């Protein structure tokens, strides 16, 4: 028996017209490497501020920056490096006075779990056993920028560049290694720790500048008050405990 159109039209219209963000929404654009930690922190923040609903938007820090620059209605911007936040600041996109560093991370080389060849140094990656190396796209992904800077400093970038598989963000680089599609990858220590059964850390790469995450309220954000609260919330002991559990270091 056919269902009368009026029966479905009303709920359908309700669903189709309900995408509008409400005033109490707090949109947080955060670096992909923060995915697990922020997903855990959002309900904690909501419990402390029951009138606020946290909407999380993850991506490469550079890509998020472009979205904000083009007018995406984000309230908080959390980047995995200082360079992206510096760009945001110089373009006047974030409130510079309220910018904070909130966690630090490490750069590691990982290989698929159960792999036979384990690189010990960056030079080992030049060998034929590592014909594909996943790296975040240096143009938009901070982990790729850190990686490229280190490799350029030791004069290895030109040799490794032809093997590079550029990832859209650090989680994709991690996924490529976990699936065994690449022989090695450069990711953050926290990402490697999130898949201990699928990837193993070969060695930690010393970076020239420390991997420090920055957060700031977005200048044009619709919910400035909640944005300020969220930034200070990230530095509270309870939030820092969650970060520590996911392998992040102190800022």
């Amino acid at each position, binding site marked *: 028996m056919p269902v009368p159109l009026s029966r479905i039209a009303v709920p359908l219209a309700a669903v189709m017209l309900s995408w509008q963000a409400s005033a109490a929404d707090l949109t947080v654009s955060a670096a992909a490497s923060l995915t697990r930690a922020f997903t855990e922190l959002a309900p904690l923040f909501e419990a402390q501020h029951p009138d606020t609903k946290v909407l999380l938007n993850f991506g*490469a820090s*550079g890509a998020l920056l*472009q979205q904000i620059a083009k007018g995406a209605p984000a309230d908080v911007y959390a980047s995995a490096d200082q360079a992206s936040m510096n760009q945001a600041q110089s373009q006047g996109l974030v409130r510079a006075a309220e910018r904070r560093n909130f966690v630090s991370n490490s750069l590691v080389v990982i290989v698929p779990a159960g792999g036979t060849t384990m690189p010990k140094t960056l030079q080992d990656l030049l060998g034929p056993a590592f014909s594909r190396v996943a790296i975040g796209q240096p143009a938009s992904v901070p982990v790729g920028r850190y990686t490229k800077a280190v490799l350029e400093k030791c004069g290895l970038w030109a040799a490794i560049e032809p093997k590079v598989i550029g990832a859209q963000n650090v989680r994709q680089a991690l996924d490529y290694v976990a699936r065994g599609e690449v022989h090695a990858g450069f990711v953050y220590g926290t990402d490697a720790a999130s898949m201990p059964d699928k990837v193993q850390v070969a060695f930690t790469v010393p970076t020239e500048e420390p991997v420090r995450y920055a957060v700031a309220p977005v200048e044009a954000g619709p919910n400035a008050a909640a944005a300020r609260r969220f930034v200070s919330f990230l530095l509270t002991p309870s939030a820092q405990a969650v970060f520590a559990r996911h392998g992040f270091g102190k800022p």
Partner: protein
Amino acid sequence: MGTAWVPLALTLKVAGWATLLNLVLGVAVGFLLARKQFPGRDVLDALLTLPMVMPPTVLGYYLLVLIGRRGPLGGWLDATFGIQLIFTWQGAVIAATIVAFPLVFKASRAAFESVDPQLEQAACVLGVPEWAVFLRVTLPLAWRGVMAGLLLAFARATGEFGATLMVAGSIPGRTQTLSIAVYEAVQAGQDHVANSLVLITSVTCIAVLLIAGRLAPGRVAGQF
């Protein structure tokens, strides 16, 4: 600007191969579904139409799982022939072919169904062998519809993004097609690169449509 031609050439290569493969696969399947009665025909038609209605990312994931080095098909290819498809332009061709396939077989099926069987029977009666009836009677009569499907498939393959990105990645000069190059340029805030890329893409699309109209004046173009 010079670097913009590399993704264009790659895009045309990938879309060209995908269209060629679909010329064979899509026409064969379209003919089979139009002319042969067998149980489960409707189910098969629905299954083969899936790539058109499913999100490209779903297809990309299926492909990644299937033809990846640890997938059943990809693992076998790697172990037997040493062939790896992920992160290669051949992988991009597979993704584009599957995404565009329903457009060709749907159009071909409809075209074959509209061919009057009496014309084929007449050819048979006159002693033309079965394969020659297909090539000299059925296919020429159905060609307009087939061609329309192929053009749509070429356009769809040219613009393919989601499945390609997941299967072939974004390696400049090797798997970075036009649509992916545009995405990367926008992500990195290189608006001038993005501008020249979208301009090239637009001009290419217009050129393809004009050439299509020229190939079959007043007929194929009129079907869009």
